[in-house]
């Protein structure tokens, strides 16, 4: 039983070492990556056009109007007056 355990340990260590060295060798001889280049006929995308700001919708802006002098009485003044409080 003891010798079986020892043999198993040696077998696992040996196969791990062989696998590691094999993988290293395989990657070391693999083809190197090349930088990406656009295929012929394809150019970089053009920048998107910017949009003009939208004009205000009808009625959404308040114009402040200068008012002409207004009639302030037609004979007697009205009894209701609004003034600052």
């Amino acid at each position, binding site marked *: 039983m003891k010798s079986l355990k020892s043999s198993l340990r040696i077998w696992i260590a040996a196969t791990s070492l062989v696998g590691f060295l094999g993988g290293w060798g395989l990657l070391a001889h693999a083809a190197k990556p090349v930088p990406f280049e656009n295929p012929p006929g394809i150019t970089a995308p053009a920048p998107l056009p910017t949009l003009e700001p939208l004009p205000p919708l009808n009625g959404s802006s308040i114009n402040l109007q200068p008012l002409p002098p*207004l*009639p302030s009485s037609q004979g007697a003044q009205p*009894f209701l*007056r*609004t003034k*600052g*409080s």
Partner: protein
Amino acid sequence: MEYHRFRAMNSDILLAAEGEATRLATGFKQVQTLFEDKERRFTRFSEDSELAKLNLSAGGWFHASAELFEVLKLARDYWEATDGLFNPAILGALEHAGYDRSMDEIRAHGAAQVATRGWENVPDFSAVRLDEPARAIWMPVGMRIDLGGIAKGWISEQATRELSSFAEACAVNAGGDMFLAGLPAGENAWEVALEDPRDPERSLAILNVGPGAVATSSITKRCWQQGERLQHHLIDPRTGTPAETDWLSVTVIASSAAAAEVFAKALLIAGSLEFNAIAQHNQEIAFIAVDDQGGLWGSNNIWEYLDVTNESVSR
């Protein structure tokens, strides 16, 4: 038209109504009592008022009457609608500017020449919490509010509604903040004179207004000397000091008296450079502003209310 005049909330109150004389007399009496009751609740000049008790409760929950809760809720809505230019939490700043006693007292004896309170930032009104089911209000420690203007508008509307049950048509004018119900017999509008903020004896225009509200805010009415400075009561919440504006007064026509009062105040603080943000978001109101040269400026929709029958006026 029958009239009844009295003084309340440091303002001249005028009631006008058409109807049967005995009923109108009863209505006038009831409305005067209504003003006196509401003034006791909303004044900041009495320690016994509900408003004063609310201000003392800052930092804890305050169980309010239905009326105070309703006005505070309106105030919060209008704080949002005016981008914070209407902010009832300006009381500390107002007192610092010298308005620490009633205007009647200031007119009789003058304001304190040295501020009785140190200057402080106007608190952020968004911190106020309202618990509607419990009708409870929470304000952060240090916040004190003044509901003077908005409460006066709200009360004039309540008073008009009460008076209208005794009259065919009626109007309540509380120091320039008015609410109108019905129309005078044979007329299609109420005529309201717009007072010149530079000369109270003069009018600048006649507004033809249907049932609804008209209110004016001005920096020339409630003003006083504090040391070498001429102060007024419209505090800009962004600076905590009396607003520096190129308009002397703004008059707003709106469907509710509280709205007319609040927007008149906010537009006046904003002035010609900043009015547009408020006006754009609240296009249901019409307004007319008077600049420091007496020039008149109006919103697009103000023409509906102007008397332009005189040939000298053309659009």
